[in-house]
């Protein structure tokens, strides 16, 4: 029973993202929205942690929120999929449960 984890806090400001990675199970999906989108950028103190989680979890980022923070898609970690709001909706439909890490 796969779960979608929605994270909206920057990993450089709060521990919610890290808690999410600690709790998410194999086969789950993680979607970064709002301030969490900065966590998708490669080469940061957080990126190794996220890359490790990507071994058995799918990771997505909301493209509009990433762009709104001045981050181009070529700066994000390889393998993170960029979605729009339609893709966001699809993720909530495809996963039986959703957890928002507020």
């Amino acid at each position, binding site marked *: 029973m796969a779960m979608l984890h*929605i994270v*909206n806090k920057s990993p450089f400001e709060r521990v919610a993202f890290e808690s999410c990675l600690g709790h998410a199970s194999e086969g789950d999906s993680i979607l970064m*929205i*709002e*301030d969490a989108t900065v966590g998708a950028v490669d080469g940061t103190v957080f990126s190794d942690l996220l890359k490790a989680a990507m071994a058995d979890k799918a990771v997505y980022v909301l493209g509009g*929120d990433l762009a709104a923070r001045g981050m181009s898609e070529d700066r994000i970690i390889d393998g993170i999929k960029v979605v*729009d*709001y*339609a893709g*966001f*909706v*699809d993720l*909530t*439909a495809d996963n039986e449960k*959703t957890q*928002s890490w*507020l």
Partner: protein
Amino acid sequence: MKYTVMINEGPYQHQSADTALQFVRAALAKGHEIYRVFFYHDGVNNGTCLSVPPSDDRQIQKEWSELAKEHELDLVICIAAAQRRGIMDESEAKRQGMDAHNIADGFRISGLGQLIEGGIQADRTIVFGD
């Protein structure tokens, strides 16, 4: 698919009020049903009709009212959260001895039971907040 959406953030806190509105629009565009939108905590501030943002600013409260009208959405404001923040409909204002009410078009005031029932009736419950 049937959705219940919970919103815990007002329009002038951070981004979640906007995110929720755009999510609901995208879900409707995909043909999903929005069973209920439940406004809790500071999220109740999305439902006042007395907010007047500058004309070139985002108009969140108005957009909810318009979306509700267009899609017959059930926008429910938590009564206890609303009372604390001065959001009232006509009958509640009368009951509290107030001389004004300010609930926006398309919203109604009810209790937390509506959130629980929404969660039971819907296939998915999505929470937005700060």
